[in-house]
């Protein structure tokens, strides 16, 4: 009896240390995705409603990674961006509430990702980002996935393992400046954190546990730093 109790307590502690309480199953929260089983995704240029002009590019260049790593086919981002520009479809805001059928026809996309940057406020050692990700079906125009939140990112913790020397080498390796590298990392973490509960696409190995997994809170507020991996 006593041993059973200890075991139970142990399991509870270990489990609760993994995550905050989540109550909705992924299969319920993202039902549309499980029904439609989309394979391919078109990344729309992020909609920037923040006051930081560069925020759009920070997000745009980092979005492919979490979606591809989740097992989806991501329509080539630079090539599709060029076509969107040529077709005067570069302003994603115009399509947020309209039919997406054309994007299915032209790009072969099963779904379209809208990224809305609501806030990008820098204070000393911290960036507070408000962001929302919406995946919509090009077949039904339904929302398949929607999460938004506030991410308070502590920029004073360096991501390069090698301290100052490591940081200098990193900068020397590319012509990008340190500030930009840091903010690209903020966007990377925002994408990675939010999209970590995406249902998996066809290139990811089947996870027998997926039907038991919970969706993240659909409206969240977290504090993260560059140590967050995804």
């Amino acid at each position: 009896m006593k041993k059973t109790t200890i075991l139970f307590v142990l399991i509870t502690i270990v489990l609760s240390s993994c995550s905050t309480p989540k109550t909705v199953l992924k299969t319920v929260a993202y039902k549309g995705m499980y029904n439609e089983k989309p394979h391919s995704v078109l990344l729309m240029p992020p909609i920037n409603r923040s006051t930081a002009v560069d925020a759009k590019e920070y997000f745009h260049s980092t979005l492919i990674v979490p979606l591809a790593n989740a097992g989806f086919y991501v329509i080539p981002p630079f090539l599709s961006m060029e076509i969107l520009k040529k077709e005067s479809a570069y302003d994603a805001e115009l399509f947020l509430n309209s039919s997406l059928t054309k994007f299915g026809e032209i790009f072969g996309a099963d779904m379209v990702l809208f990224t809305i940057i609501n806030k990008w406020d820098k204070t000393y050692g911290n960036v507070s980002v408000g962001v929302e990700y919406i995946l919509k079906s090009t077949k039904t125009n339904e929302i398949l996935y929607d999460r938004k939140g506030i991410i308070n990112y502590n920029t004073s913790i360096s991501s390069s393992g090698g301290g100052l020397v490591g940081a200098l080498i990193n900068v020397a390796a590319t012509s990008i400046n340190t500030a930009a590298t840091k903010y690209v990392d903020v966007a990377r973490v925002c994408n990675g954190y939010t999209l970590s509960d995406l249902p998996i696409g066809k290139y990811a190995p089947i996870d027998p546990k997926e039907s038991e997994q919970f969706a993240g809170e659909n409206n969240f507020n977290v504090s993260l730093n560059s140590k967050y991996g995804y």
Partner: protein
Amino acid sequence: MKKIIYFSISLFMLCSCTSQQKLYSWDKYQTTSYNYLKNSDEKSTQELIKTYQGIIAKQTGTRSVVPPGIYADYGFLLLQVNKTAEGKEMLLKEIALYPESKVFIDRILKKLEK
């Protein structure tokens, strides 16, 4: 004996918390693609080309294949720097590896023929 069981159970559960190995590896993609997006100058173009070459040459992800979109975007960049034949070859590689890209890439290839 029981202690060992408890220990292994908790160890197993802790392990399941950590992130799994990723499908693909990306070299310096996130910073070099940002820089290209922002500046589109000679230097940032060359750096992104180098990144694509790195991603294609070495994959440490679990799938051990080039990630989606990379061959095509690399090809697109080569077209920009007037390496037309090489660029087209990369676009065809994207279709070969990811047949779902055919709808879109064929459209681009057709435009290039004109």
